[in-house]
């Protein structure tokens, strides 16, 4: 009988501060045991509980793609006890993870369809996983157009800047990066995500939309998707709620009869429409 509460031992391979305010840091973790690495199979959209002995655990979406072998990436916003400790951990130190947990983006539904990815701020992590996954040559041929709209409050707060620069150059995807307010070096787009979405105006026909971002962004982007005639069953989002066990036992992350940890974190708007607004 496997004990789902025991963390898998990992080692910090690399760390990177992502944003100018130094509040977001990416940890790249390697498996300490080969058998753990082999057994760890995940799909973009899933998450892990990161575990620091003596500090506790907190859930984070997996920011790397299953196509990037050998390690897992997590981007952590410094906010509480565990995340502060995760900002202090250094390369070579050991820690634990539990997972992969939760469901994933409905990748099988994306086959033969266009994919529109809309991200805001530091909610871009599992979207990165999804984009990298879809751009892998074998997977790329399975979906049609990929459009990514990604916004942050200012240029310094954009995640994964090097990759964004690479994606800009690609011909097999369309990337629109925008900021709410630019600075003297910013040559890109300035504008709020909902307005930029309207401007880009992607066709909703044969298209799935995946949207992750702060509640305020979602609130104003959703009506724009409605205007573009996206049906609720083709709009997906990933939710967060306070979690502990991550496996549907401890009770706290429910929205109606569903648990964000076990039945989510990815939900369609069709599903969410039937659930209480308990999030």
């Amino acid at each position, binding site marked *: *009988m*496997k*004990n*789902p*509460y*025991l*963390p898998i*031992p990992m080692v910090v391979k690399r760390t990177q501060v992502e944003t100018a305010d130094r509040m977001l840091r990416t940890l790249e973790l390697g498996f300490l045991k080969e058998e753990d690495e082999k057994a760890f199979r995940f799909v973009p959209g899933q998450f892990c509980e990161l575990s620091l*002995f*003596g*500090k*506790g*655990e907190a859930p984070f979406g997996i920011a790397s793609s299953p196509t990037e072998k050998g390690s897992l990436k997590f981007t952590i916003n410094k*906010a*509480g006890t565990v*995340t502060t400790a995760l900002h202090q951990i250094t390369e*070579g*130190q*050991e820690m*634990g993870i539990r997972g992969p947990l939760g469901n994933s983006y409905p990748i099988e539904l994306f086959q033969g369809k266009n994919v529109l990815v809309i991200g805001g701020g530091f909610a871009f992590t599992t979207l990165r996983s999804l984009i990298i996954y879809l751009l892998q040559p074998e997977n790329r041929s399975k979906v049609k157009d990929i459009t990514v709209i990604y916004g942050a409050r200012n240029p310094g707060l954009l995640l994964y800047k090097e990759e964004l620069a690479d994606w800009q150059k690609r011909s097999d995807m369309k990337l629109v990066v925008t900021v709410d307010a630019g600075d003297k070096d910013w040559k890109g787009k300035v504008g709020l995500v909902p307005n930029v979405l309207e401007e880009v105006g992607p066709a909703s026909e044969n298209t799935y939309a995946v949207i992750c971002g702060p509640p305020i962004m979602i609130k104003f982007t959703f009506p724009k998707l409605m205007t573009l005639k996206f049906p609720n069953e083709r709009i997906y989002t990933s939710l*967060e*709620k*306070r979690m*502990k*066990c991550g*496996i*549907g*036992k*401890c*009770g*706290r992350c*429910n929205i*109606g*009869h569903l648990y964000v940890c*076990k039945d989510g974190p990815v939900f369609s708007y069709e599903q969410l429409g039937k659930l*209480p607004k*308990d*999030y």
Partner: protein
Amino acid sequence: MSLNPATLDKKEFGSFLKQVMQTYDVIAPVELAEGVSAYRKIESPEEISLASHNTQKSAKEAFFPQSEVMFRYEKEGNRTQVTSTEEVNRPRLILASRPCDIQAFSLLDKVFSAKEYTDVYFLKKREKTTIVGFACNDPLSTCFCTSTGGGPFTREGSDIFLVDLGDAYLVEFLTEKGKALSQNEFLREASEGDVARAKKLEEEASKRMNVPVPLDGIETKLDQMLENPFWDRIHEKCLGCGACTFLCPTCHCFDISDEASQKGGQRVRNWDTCLFSLYSMETSGHNPRPSGRERTRQRLMHKFNYFPKNFQKIACVGCGRCILYCPVNFDIRQVISEINEK
């Protein structure tokens, strides 16, 4: 020779138990303080306190303790050695668990033994445990188990079942696990009179049960009630102390936290409750259940709507503890009736 049913004289009860304790860890009702009774592992039969009514704390503690160490860890340089506490070595026996609490075990099973993720701490204890049910000859006015699919003499879920006959117990061995205890020198064959007395007690107990609480169709009713002004009113009385959820045999919420020292420590899980504001409070400061309205609603919706949606059963066994021990006399039966009138 195995006897079934058997009779056990009360004056032999201690000797019988001493024999049982050679093989089993016995978990039985113990009076911890005046008015505070709970199930605890006993070292001697004298510790047992078999009152005529149910314990204050439910028997769920035998599988899901209020505070439980999940693993210990020790740091050696950069390495961390983790030792799980999940193993259960000796067979265990819960003595005199009431039918309502036993029904609750079957509900907890659905949560903790769900195939996708098995809660090893719960399940390993469960598998190693023989359950001795204890008939309620004298149900309280707060009891409503007959409305939730049980009854004061319901044997379902018991491996062995005891009925208090006054000077003796009628002992029924119901499962193979239970029959393992039927070979005991202190048991004698039950007479027809003993069996008839038990039957009579059962009839009397069922007559004493209160008017049924209308629970049929409550799930469907609640489907339409999420935004009903009803919740604005009913939560006003609740102090949010959580006593009802801690004493509830079906409530299973827990928190996980680390207790650390310099070189090591342990990860512990503790009962938690949806009635506390910190329960759902996020680091950002956002709380999806900001007031008593949402928290009271969550407690009742979970029991009578969400749990039935997931497991086809309501998460209430009619034990009445939440009514009996609520400091402000919040009566779940009245709330159910009001929901039915909506």
